[in-house]
């Protein structure tokens, strides 16, 4: 560094990092600690609590709602990632074409992403209302369904409903990220391919898709991470019900802690969710690393 000493820069670096370690790092460690202790309302503020080893984890694994909710979580996240990346890519490609108002309308789509997740949940609960909801009305007016769908109260449908709402909520963000990656593809590649007689399908498969691959992988990781946060939306729509049909791990963990005041089991459940998110985060960092290396 030329000139001035960089001591100040280290102070600047330390402050936010210490903040994050204090308010994110410490809670994570604390959560792990609680997951091997017996924690109830009586001893919640004490630091020394009965150590129970892996008992909480055994309780969690044996719990039927946990098994169900783990599968739900994987389905919910998987469908969100697939749909948001696929639809996001399609929409980004559409708006990458030159037509009047393309940029403005592409931006307008972000309106749904700007809304608070809780409001999105409330709004879709109203849209999905069985008798007066507009979803059932439109579908039956189009003769797509015979009788009204019980979007939120039918255990077979509830997970699909919250998934649809979450895709609506998150897709524009994936789309914007993919659109940004699209503009980074050198135009010469397309020109050369056109000269060689490649049609639009060939250009998509042999130029666009390979060039986007790292970005798509990174977006998939980000969508996974954000989808694991879908607490507010599901809380507003179904609270995880009926019978845990639409429940996901972070929400179940929260319910164990704050509804049943079984903080130890809740924390152990949380650890499983941490593990999933942490695994994806590592994959994400690795993806970025490779992207930079190439």
């Amino acid at each position: 560094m030329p000139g001035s000493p960089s001591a100040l820069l280290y102070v600047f670096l330390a402050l936010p990092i210490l903040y994050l370690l204090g308010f994110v790092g410490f809670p994570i460690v604390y959560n792990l600690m609680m997951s091997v202790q017996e924690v109830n309302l009586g001893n919640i503020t004490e630091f020394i609590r009965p150590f129970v080893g892996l008992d909480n984890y055994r309780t969690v694994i044996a719990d039927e709602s946990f098994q169900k909710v783990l599968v739900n979580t994987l389905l919910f996240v998987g469908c969100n990632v697939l749909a948001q990346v696929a639809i996001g890519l399609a929409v980004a490609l559409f708006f990458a074409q030159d037509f009047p108002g393309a940029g403005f309308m592409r931006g307008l789509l972000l309106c749904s992403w700007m809304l608070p997740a809780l409001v999105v949940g409330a709004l879709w609960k109203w849209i999905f209302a069985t008798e007066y909801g507009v979803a059932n009305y439109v579908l039956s007016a189009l003769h797509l369904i015979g009788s009204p769908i019980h979007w939120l109260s039918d255990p077979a449908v509830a997970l699909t409903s919250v998934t649809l709402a979450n895709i609506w909520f998150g897709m524009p963000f994936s789309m914007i990220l993919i659109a940004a990656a699209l503009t980074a593809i050198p135009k010469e590649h397309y020109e050369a391919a056109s000269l060689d007689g490649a049609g639009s399908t060939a250009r998509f498969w042999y130029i666009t898709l390979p060039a986007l691959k790292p970005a798509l992988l990174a977006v998939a990781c980000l969508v996974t991470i954000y989808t694991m946060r879908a607490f507010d939306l599901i809380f507003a729509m179904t609270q995880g019900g009926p019978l845990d049909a639409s429940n996901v791990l972070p929400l179940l963990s929260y319910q164990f802690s704050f509804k049943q005041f079984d903080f130890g089991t809740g924390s152990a459940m949380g650890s499983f969710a941490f593990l999933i998110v942490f695994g994806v985060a590592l994959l994400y960092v690795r993806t970025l690393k490779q992207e930079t290396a190439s």
Partner: protein
Amino acid sequence: MSVRLRQLGVLPFGGWPATAIAVIGVGIYLFPIYWMLISGLKDSAEIFANPPTFVPRAPSLAAFEYVFVRENVLRYLRNSLTIAIPVTMLTLILGAMGAYAMSRLRNRLVDFAIVIVLLLQVFPEALLATPMFIIFRSLELLNTFAAVILATTSKTLAFALVILRPMFRQVPFELEEASFVDGCTRLQTFRLVVLPLMKVPLIVVGTLCFVQAYGQFVYGLTLLSQQELQPATVGIYSFVGAEYADWHRVMAFSSIFVLPILAIFLAMQRRIVSGLTAGGAQMTKISVFRRFERCA
């Protein structure tokens, strides 16, 4: 057909037909937001009308009036703002300092710090809620705005650092060198040279953080049990949670709550989108691990 269309052209149309398709598509996509806004304008008979009316027959502000008078919307909005404004300030101060340091320092420690930030931003708040509850309980900060502000900032700060760092790298180093030559200290250079140049990106990131903090729910629900302190998200939730929700009123409440956000977004649309594309591109293609060449 333009050149650009032929290059990216995966779909067989462009020009005005594409605009028409886009208008219809965006219209359908944003229909739920329209539905929220007009549901609030209906009365209790029309809200349960079958078939539903897509344009309110007799738009009335009765539902809005009800939530203002009976549901204390203003108090909820004030609480949300009391949380969101300090969160935004704190995030911008810490975020600008951290992002500036990350963009200027060049060593393993910084690489490590960036990975820490990337990793710490991924954990769902719902999972941090229990430890946060216990921490703030032992600090005797439960039922204070401070607790929610500190907790929410931990989420927005990581996001701000990730987006701001590449933006700070765009400040030409020569400008700083010149100010050092003129005898400025680094702190003065940061305040007088770097920050003014970063005004627009900081406003964009500040807006995004504000929106996140304004709509924050989990910590408001967990750390504030006194109704007088709860933010609007918690207010809407308790309203929706009722067995038979008055949907026109819930939607009126939601509309009042989100209209400021939508207004800010529409006013700043171009900047937010370009900020997101620039910052967002870095989220999919971060040059985290490349050493900072300029200062070498």
